[in-house]
């Protein structure tokens, strides 16, 4: 009994530790990015890795989600005789919710896990120590470009997702079920207002930062967790942890932002 309380206590402290470290990491990354010399190439390179790795997945899942939405909304709206609202429904669902959330989750799986693995391996093979001993700040060289790239890439990927998802809905509604193309398009355009776009954008910016931060933190600080002493297997479990944690983080943040930005 006492043991389980001890374990719980240790777990809570560990979570607080990790949260603290990750927050510090964010602050250090911002600080380092603002120091001269200003290097844009590493950020662009990371954006390419994150974007290129995830693009195909984003496009496929975007079209599919759009089609599923089209399907389900059509089904529901048909019962109330309001299929002309299909465009609005799909558009609002994608831009406010599914676009940012699904994109973030895809990026977690593809780019996030590979960032954790990369940094974890660098840590356990002393590459991070080597950087430190060369007087090169790992925050500036490794972490900051990834975090900035994440914050910039995810909104861009979200826009791609939104675009193909809206087309997916169009395909199902108009081409499969014969909804009037005009009504779909007008429904889309009428329903979307600035607050909706703003919500989607804010979500994708925050998700981008959150996902990359967690991925970086789990890999970079692997030596401070139990996984750090287990070599290659440790990297594997750190990667899984990062994916689970980021996914939960995205879903939770999604609710919070939605509630706060009424």
């Amino acid at each position: 009994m006492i043991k389980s309380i001890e374990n719980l206590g240790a777990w809570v402290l560990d979570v607080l530790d990790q949260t603290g470290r990750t927050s510090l990491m964010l602050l250090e990354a911002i600080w380092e990015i603002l120091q001269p010399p200003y290097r844009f190439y590493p950020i662009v390179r990371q954006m390419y890795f994150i974007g290129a790795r995830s693009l195909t997945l984003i496009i496929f899942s975007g079209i599919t989600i759009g089609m599923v939405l089209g399907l389900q909304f059509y089904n529901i709206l048909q019962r109330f005789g309001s299929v002309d609202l299909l465009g609005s429904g799909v558009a609002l669902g994608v831009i406010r919710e599914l676009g940012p959330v699904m994109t973030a989750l895809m990026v977690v799986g593809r780019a996030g896990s590979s960032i954790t693995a990369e940094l974890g391996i660098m840590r356990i093979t002393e590459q991070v120590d080597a950087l430190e001993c060369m007087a090169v700040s790992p925050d500036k060289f490794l972490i900051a470009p990834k975090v900035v790239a994440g914050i910039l890439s995810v909104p861009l990927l979200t826009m791609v997702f939104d675009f193909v998802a809206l087309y997916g809905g169009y395909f199902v509604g108009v081409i499969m079920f014969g909804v009037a193309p005009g009504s779909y398009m007008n429904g889309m355009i009428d329903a979307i207002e600035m607050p909706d776009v703003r919500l989607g954008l804010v979500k994708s910016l925050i998700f981008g930062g959150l996902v990359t931060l967690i991925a970086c933190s789990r890999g970079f600080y692997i030596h401070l967790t139990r996984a750090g002493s287990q070599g290659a297997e440790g990297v594997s479990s750190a990667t899984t942890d990062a994916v689970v944690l980021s996914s939960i983080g995205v879903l939770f943040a999604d609710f919070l932002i939605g509630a706060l930005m009424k």
Partner: protein
Amino acid sequence: MTPDNPNAITIRDLVVDYGPRRILHSVNLDIPLGQIMVIMGQSGAGKSTLLRCILGLKKPSSGSIHMLGTDIATATRKEIYDVRKHIGVAFQGGALFSSMTVAENIQLPLREHTNLDDKTIEIMTRIKLDMVDMLPAEHLMPAELSGGMTKRAALARAIIMDPKLLFFDEPSSGLDPSTAAELDQLIITLKNSMGMTIVVVTHELDSIFKIADHIAVVHQGNILETGTPQQITASTNPEIQGLLNRKPRENIVDADAHLRRLTGGF
């Protein structure tokens, strides 16, 4: 380090605790300028911890480490970075950056800390690669290198900025005897031709006596003894003699007991 100080590194009363465990017990050590100092001891004796403290990778619980005019034990991050621009470190596994070629690895310090022209950097990289006999490997990725090649590339990276202080963590580990001997020779040449102060942490006896000007023996977090190779060989300390002689294991005395140990039988 002042003009009249003959030591590159001065360590005083260094204590390192990992929670309740004391890893280093009030270590005192002087590392002389322009010489090769070998820090030897068994695995787990504390020599890696000592090295990490000297490099500023681990903050000790108390004590001081004076290196190139700064007390590493109490210095700020910026001060430690300033000192590190004048040192080179060759890690045990090489620690080459996996996403860059050998040449890009070696050039990294130059690209980060200087404004030298690309052409100059290229020539400097090639000079160092030639010194370690790795010129053909210039554009290879670290994953394509053998163990010996990795160590040499790591050495080239460590000396690219002509550091005053060079550190080796287990330089011969994983190498066959002839490659290890070549590396030993390179270490000696670097001391002689470039006047570097070199610190080698190792447990390989053959290398130790070939390259060392001074030896420090570490055992269970203490420095047992320091001295020249001759002095250490002549030491009367039983622990040191044990380390040096690698006594063969004693013959089995109780056959019965041994049989039981092996079979888990009764």
